[in-house]
């Protein structure tokens, strides 16, 4: 995904074409490939499945029964709010030309987009309809804020969640997406000078050469850091480390993790934008990394804690999916397994040891899995992308071939992405939480927290037994 885009408005009517080009073959106007289009529609639906119900159930199962509906509801409504904001101004700010950090307002309210509008892919002269590109990117913009709620689950006002997400989406998600993914598309890369001119209009981190195939930085580090800042500023749940805050249904969490796993093929493979050979490599990488991370997490748990747990298995799968997300278009299958094993073990360490050492209450490990897993993936991309390690290397659109690979240089570029995201998201999150706290207030009262958010905030209970 990353991208793009040129809108082709087809002004040439049949009669004119016949007249103008009577002496030569009639040129075929650029059009979307039907196979790619069909795949992108399916991929978009798969990403929706990740959020509702996948992420909602994954998180919901991990809270106590009295807060189940608050998790489901937060994810469900965040998804809906972000969808509308995306159409109003999100898409335009993320994916039109502006400066290196923010796009412009040319496409607010999806102005000017028609069924014939095209979005660039990663191949020259191959396009997908812009509407499905808008919808696909919408699902990314919707899942990212929803990931954050895991960090401060069970203690924040519903109104505060929505206000925070509105601010954070506008000032952290959109600029990060623009910085990492916005470019004019490959068609402009005809020679070195044209490539330089085209790259100069791209996002800040795109210009730095940071690779992020499906959103390791934009989605996972971005959300993970917002979660970490949140749980530090909001404070621990009442009874943290004193009372039982055990998950009420690991079964629900397993169902949610499985839906995330299935949906992630839409997320990663869809990010290729084309249903071609590279898409199948992305598919295999996604599959292998998540399986490897599941095994790594479970093995670490078994060795160090005595028992392999279902919650550990589900967490490992998600950690692997997070880590392969930035790398899935550049790693080889063995590189994906390596990255998955590393992510499973490191995320296990972060949620069991790092969290207790530092003492913050990241309720459902939004930072421990998405933040840490995202950083492992982003930096690891610089390693596994190397052709010498079975990766694909980076394509040179001017030479139309794989460029010479410089691992140290690439890891430096990746570090630019990671560092920028940590600082940007951290700063925006800090200010956004402060604003929310001063206006509607972040945290519910002790009484409400004891009673549970379901009955207090939403007026209903999840289970009637």
């Amino acid at each position: 995904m990353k991208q793009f885009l040129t809108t082709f408005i087809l002004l040439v009517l049949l009669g004119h074409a016949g007249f103008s080009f009577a002496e030569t073959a009639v040129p075929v106007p650029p059009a979307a490939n039907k196979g790619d289009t069909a795949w992108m529609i399916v991929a978009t639906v798969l990403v929706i499945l990740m959020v509702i119900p996948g992420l909602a159930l994954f998180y919901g199962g991990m809270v106590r029964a009295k807060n189940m509906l608050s998790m489901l509801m937060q994810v469900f409504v965040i998804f809906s709010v972000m969808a509308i904001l995306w159409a109003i101004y999100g898409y335009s700010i993320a994916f039109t030309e502006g400066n290196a950090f923010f796009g412009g307002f040319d496409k607010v309210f999806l102005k000017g987009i028609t069924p014939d509008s095209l979005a660039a892919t990663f191949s020259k002269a191959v396009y997908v309809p812009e509407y499905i590109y808008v919808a696909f990117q919408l699902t990314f913009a919707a899942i990212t804020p929803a990931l954050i709620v895991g960090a401060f689950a069970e203690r924040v006002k519903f109104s505060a969640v929505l206000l925070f997400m509105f601010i954070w989406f506008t000032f952290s998600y959109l600029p990060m997406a623009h910085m990492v993914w916005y470019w004019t598309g490959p068609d402009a890369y005809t020679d070195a000078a044209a490539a330089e001119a085209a790259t100069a209009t791209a996002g800040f981190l795109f210009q730095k050469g940071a690779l992020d195939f499906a959103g390791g930085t934009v989605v996972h580090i971005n959300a993970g850091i917002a979660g970490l800042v949140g749980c530090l500023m909001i404070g621990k749940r009442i009874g943290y480390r004193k009372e039982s805050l055990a998950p009420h249904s690991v079964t629900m969490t397993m169902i949610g993790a499985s839906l995330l796993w299935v949906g992630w093929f839409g997320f990663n493979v869809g990010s290729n934008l084309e249903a071609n050979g590279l898409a199948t490599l992305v598919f295999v990488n996604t599959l292998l990394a998540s399986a490897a991370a599941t095994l790594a997490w479970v093995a670490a748990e078994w060795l160090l804690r005595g028992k392999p747990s279902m919650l550990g298995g589900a967490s490992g799968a998600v950690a692997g999916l997070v880590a392969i997300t930035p790398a899935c278009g550049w790693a080889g299958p063995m590189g994906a397994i390596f990255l998955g094993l590393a992510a499973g073990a490191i995320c296990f360490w972060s949620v069991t040891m790092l969290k207790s050492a530092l003492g913050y209450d990241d309720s459902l490990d939004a930072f421990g899995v998405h933040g840490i897993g995202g950083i492992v993936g982003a930096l690891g991309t610089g390693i596994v992308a190397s052709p010498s390690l079975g990766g694909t290397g980076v394509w040179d659109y001017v030479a139309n071939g794989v460029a010479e690979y410089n691992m140290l240089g690439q890891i430096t570029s990746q570090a630019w992405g990671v560092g920028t995201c940590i600082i940007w998201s951290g700063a925006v999150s800090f200010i956004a939480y402060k604003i929310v706290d001063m206006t509607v207030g972040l945290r519910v009262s002790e009484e409400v927290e004891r009673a549970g958010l379901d009955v207090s905030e939403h007026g209903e209970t999840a289970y009637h037994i």
Partner: protein
Amino acid sequence: MKLITAVVKPFKLDDVREALSDIGVSGVTVTEVKGFGRQKGHTELYRGAEYVVDFLPKAKIEVAVADTMLEQAVEAITKAANTGKIGDGKIFVTDLEQVVRIRTGETGEEAL
């Protein structure tokens, strides 16, 4: 009359009910309860957060019997609920002053 209160392992409940039926006990009341005794609880581990589960689930059976039936009933429960492992439970016997059958108004052993 005596009231027998037995706390047993939940999976032994059906065996106990059957044993009591066999000796002619015509009714029992069962409650799902939690508690602790000599059997230790267990720990649960969720992403590194350790929770000690002190209270284990048990089934509590209450049965009222005539004094003549007491020994037989206690023996039936003991036999049926026994696994020989720690955590099999306990039986408490208390005096029972009065019993009333609500439908007919019968009292005492008539009402059992």
